[in-house]
């Protein structure tokens, strides 16, 4: 006879069976039975956040830095609605999460009970899939299926809504090994005919480019290794989206830097002029393509993606390959090698000559100052002083600082760069850095932030201090919503409507109030010492770096313009964005 256990026990047991070691959460009435079970065990560590949004972003940081799904436990009603931003963020960036929410008891659902919300209804469009468990016997199979769905195919967040009576009631527990097999089985192997076409294109191309994205990182470290081998073998140039940074090392000789709206000149020009674009795990996002009808006009395009809906969504591709990046790259490499490792090397050399000319533009150059700290300079110094740490993890918030971090910091390995790419969630970076530090207690975890973004989830200082997490909050404080200000300058006649940060706290005192360390620096001459002080302190640090207030982030492709119409640092920015571009974001 099978033994019966309570639903709450099942939740903890299922998490253990799935190899979960950490849960980020916040208790409340509808999850008390589960919290009671968590109290009575020691295998799963629960991290108490200060706001449910923080729990989800922390789980995202945990997931992105480990490759394992992040797990969140929150209560019904406001607990669930507070998780919505994080869920949407994870969906846009394909981050595997399993979010467990409490729900009012089944017999009260629909009665507008206290802390009741239609959680599966609200989260249906912002999860990969979600379930409302109405029967304790269904709980274990659903939990195992939830982990399977979150991890398989294109990863994403899933949510399991568990009414309180289901947590109290007893039922039969099924371990993950005995759970019924799921019908959800995305295919991993690419079509061999299309792969052959791609290999032929690789052999013939005169001006090729690899355009890689977050899919390479989601496919696992093996995918990055295969990519590196393919780049080395072919000697093709490679660029990456914001989400894909680290899949090819920034120190690698074929690296062009990030592409896109604030990407490097050489990367964008090469994308525009190439004759073969090999998209690996990226999705032709509007930050990348700029103007669609002028996007890389003369190239043949190949697209490797595990999600069929990414293919031909915005850009028509000539060689679509649906499959897992690592599986497909393995096939591509093997076939290319078996056919004699051919490339049009003479033409590729000429192509590199052209790229060299674009590189000589030195698009990241900026006017440094002896009086004020330029944000670019602050990041250059941070890079210089932390580059040697192979266990360095960087998180960011959203805005100018995020783009500068992507431009000025170099990533050598995948899973060391956590940023909100698709949704652009201000307030993401700080909780994400907490999740990363939990997963990697000894590592150097830095959150490059703007003061406005950072304030959006500043309550998590409590979490950082409680768990003694030495996260470094590297705030580039320009007392402005920098990116908003930049667009107002370029687009709205320098009318800076509500884009400054008034009544800012004294960040040093704020850190002190939480029991953390605060460092303020405003003189470029003091910057290195301040950074070293931050690095040597064993605990959370709030680093308030007062930077130039009106610095703009360049290069920039204005909205509605193609890649070869980039604005560079010293360029005139007047009328940069045309009327058709003005409606774009």
């Amino acid at each position: 006879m099978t033994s019966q256990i309570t639903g709450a026990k099942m939740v903890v047991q299922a998490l253990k069976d799935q190899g979960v070691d950490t849960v980020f959460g916040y208790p409340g009435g509808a999850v008390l039975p589960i919290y009671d079970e968590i109290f009575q065990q020691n295998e799963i560590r629960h991290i108490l956040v200060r706001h449910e949004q923080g729990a989800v972003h922390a789980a995202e940081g945990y997931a992105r830095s480990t490759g394992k799904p992040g797990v969140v436990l929150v209560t019904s009603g406001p607990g669930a609605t507070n998780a919505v931003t994080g869920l949407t963020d994870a969906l846009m960036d394909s981050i595997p999460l399993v979010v467990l929410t409490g729900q009012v008891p089944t017999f009260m659902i629909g009665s507008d009970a206290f802390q009741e919300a239609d959680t599966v209804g609200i989260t249906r469009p912002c999860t990969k899939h979600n379930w409302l468990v109405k029967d304790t016997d269904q709980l274990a199979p659903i939990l195992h299926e939830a982990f399977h769905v979150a991890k398989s195919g294109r990863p994403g967040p899933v949510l399991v809504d568990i009414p309180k009576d289901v947590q109290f009631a007893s039922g039969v527990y099924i371990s993950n090994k005995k759970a019924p097999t799921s019908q959800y089985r995305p295919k991993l192997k690419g079509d061999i005919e299309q792969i052959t076409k791609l290999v032929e294109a690789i052999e013939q191309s005169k001006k090729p480019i690899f355009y890689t994205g977050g899919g390479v990182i989601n496919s696992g470290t093996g995918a990055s290794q295969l990519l590196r081998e393919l780049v080395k073998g072919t000697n093709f140039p490679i660029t990456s989206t914001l989400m894909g940074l680290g899949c090819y090392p920034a120190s690698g000789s074929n690296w062009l830097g990030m592409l896109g709206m604030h990407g490097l000149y050489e990367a964008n020009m090469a994308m525009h002029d190439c004759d073969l674009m090999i998209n690996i795990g990226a999705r032709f996002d509007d930050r990348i393509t700029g103007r669609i009808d002028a996007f890389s006009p003369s190239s043949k395009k190949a697209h490797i993606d595990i999600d069929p809906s990414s293919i031909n969504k915005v850009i028509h591709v000539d060689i679509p390959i649906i499959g897992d990046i690592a599986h497909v790259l393995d096939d591509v490499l093997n076939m290319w090698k078996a056919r004699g490792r051919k490339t049009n090397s003479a033409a590729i050399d000429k192509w590199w000559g052209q790229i060299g000319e674009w590189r000589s533009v030195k698009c990241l150059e900026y006017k440094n100052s002896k009086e004020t700290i330029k944000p670019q300079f602050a990041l250059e110094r941070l890079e210089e002083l932390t580059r040697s740490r192979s266990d360095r993890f960087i998180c960011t918030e959203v805005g100018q600082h995020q783009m500068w971090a992507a431009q000025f910091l170099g990533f050598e390995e995948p899973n060391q760069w956590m940023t909100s790419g698709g949704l652009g969630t201000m307030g993401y970076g700080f909780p994400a850095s907490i999740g990363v530090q939990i997963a990697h207690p000894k590592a150097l975890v830095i959150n490059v932030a703007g003061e406005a973004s950072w304030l959006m989830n500043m309550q998590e200082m409590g979490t950082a201090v409680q768990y003694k997490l030495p996260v470094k909050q590297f705030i580039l404080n320009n007392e402005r919503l920098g990116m908003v200000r930049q667009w107002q300058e370029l687009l709205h006649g320098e009318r800076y409507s509500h884009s400054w940060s008034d009544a800012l706290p004294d960040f040093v005192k704020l850190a002190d109030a939480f029991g953390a360390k605060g460092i303020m620096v405003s003189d470029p001459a003091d910057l290195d010492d301040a950074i070293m002080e931050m690095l040597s302190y064993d605990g959370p640090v709030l680093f308030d770096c007062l930077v130039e207030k009106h610095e703009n982030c360049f290069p920039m492709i204005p909205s509605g313009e193609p890649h070869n119409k980039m604005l560079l640092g010293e360029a005139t920015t007047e009328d940069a964005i045309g009327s058709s571009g003005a409606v774009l974001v």
Partner: protein
Amino acid sequence: MSALKIKKGSSKHSAYDLRSTFGDEIQTHTLAILVDNEAGVLARVIGLFSGRGYNIDSLTVAEVDHEGHLSRITIVTTGTPQVIEQIKAQLGRIVPVHEVHDLTVDGPHVERELALLKVGGKGEKRVEALRLADIFRANVVDSTLDSFTFQITGTPEKVDAFAELMRPLGLIEIARTGVAALSRG
């Protein structure tokens, strides 16, 4: 969007070719979707259409495999070929969706719709309604002294035609099921 003076289809490849490859014309497609019959599955499908701005011209759904708990959803939708392709790919991504068939592309298929029409009237109009119903092979499923309720099955066009004829004869109310469709053979 014309600063570069790029003509559609001026290159054999990709972006410039975007429209000429897929075509701009709006097409109507009938999709058959096999899904797990679980709570919320219809909301997922409908939410996808509303969330991404796709059209639903008609939608029918019912369980077709009671043991396997599978439902069949038939959707008639309109859009450019690119949009239709996206709709199918997006539907295929929904976890409880097993299969997506585009009957319009797959080959010959039959489409049928059932409608109930209540037509009120007396004297010659009432006789004329009955006569036309006979021509359309509509059955009388309910009648009073001053009304008939007709049941008609056929293609949506046939139902449209019948309804138009009934309108001047005293059409009071119409209920339509939407299209159910199967491939031939």
